[in-house]
């Protein structure tokens, strides 16, 4: 029987060029790690977009995912909160069970 422990999963949809800013924050709050995925398109209040790398990625978005513990999650959210509107971030938080909880 495998033991699992609850951790927080923070997902952030962010413009590709702003990723380097977000990465800086992960350094500042010392996240244990993160993984990035490519989004190919979407639609929202500001209209529709498709992945478009000709324009230096200004028109494309990526999904940043990090698994972390309660405290780090709070800390991280507090760190990105001010950028939410300016960067137009879409942030979701959920709870997942992990194995080897100590690494997070």
């Amino acid at each position, binding site marked *: 029987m495998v033991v699992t422990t609850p951790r927080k999963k923070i997902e952030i949809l962010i*413009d590709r060029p702003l990723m380097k800013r977000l990465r800086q924050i992960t350094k500042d709050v010392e996240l244990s790690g993160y993984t990035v995925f490519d989004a190919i398109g979407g639609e929202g209040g500001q209209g*529709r*977009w498709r992945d*478009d*790398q*000709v324009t*230096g990625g*200004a028109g494309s978005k990526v999904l940043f995912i990090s698994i972390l513990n309660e405290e780090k999650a709070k800390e991280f959210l507090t760190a990105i909160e001010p*950028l939410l509107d*300016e960067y137009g971030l879409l942030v979701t938080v959920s709870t997942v069970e992990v194995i080897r909880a100590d690494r997070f």
Partner: protein
Amino acid sequence: MENLLSPVILFFILGGLAAFARSDLTIPETLSKTLSLYLMAAIGLKGGVLIASNGFTLDLLFAGTAGLLLSFLLPILAFAILRSFGKLDTVNAAAVSAHYGSVSVVTFITANQVLSDKGMAPAGYMIAVLALMETPAIISGLFLAKRGSTLSFQPNSDLLRETLLNGSIVLLTGSFIIGIIIGKDGFEPIAPVFETGFTGLLCLFLLDMGLLAVRRLRNARSLTLRLVILGIAFPIINGLIGTIIGAAVGLDVGTTTALAMLAASASYIAVPAAMRLALPKADAGLYLAMSLAITFPFNVIIGIPLFNQIAIYMVQLWS
């Protein structure tokens, strides 16, 4: 007119029509990225090789200075108009104006093609001027944006570094230098890819640009009629200024036209990426729509032949 019948332009129109008719034709993102990298490398090499064989001339100095000044100053004019007639807030006006100060490599390349076909190929050093004009406008734009939303958040110098090290600028400049080093002979073995294949691949890229332009136009919420008008007015104004200066400093017709197109064109590679970083509050959908969906097509279809005519006239005038 016969400009319109070149395959390059026809593929651009095909792309536009396809998107307009809501065809699901799409060029894979990687392909367009690849093509734009290829065009950067190819044009850079071409310029370098030309310099290597023709050497530097005083004209380069003149054209270079003119280009730098244009890139620095054009945004100020654009900014004023965007604020007043365009009714944009400071941040967006600043972001958009930076695009018009900077240049569109593909517009330049297309002009180059058309002019070469007419036997008025611009001087090779114009590619150096192209590279010089990429970034100053960004500095002006940020200066105009004054207030340091993110600037507080990260040092200006940092941003300047990022801008100067923008992938496409590095590739363009690097290939230019490589071109100078290898010269005509060293270029020969790689010419089949970077020269012979050029026009054909440019067709594919413009097909994609046609698709992108029309789709951007369709999805641009914040684009007002006034801004559409400015998207056409700016290239005309800036192009004229470019032509006058080009002729004034005594460049030949082809080179003058090229300078005009650099002034008239709006960046959609280096500047958008930089603005997204420096002025994230600015609406990317807006500045991309203006430069890519309005100014680019205008320049490619109307601007090039137009400014070529004017250049012919101006150059005569001054000589």
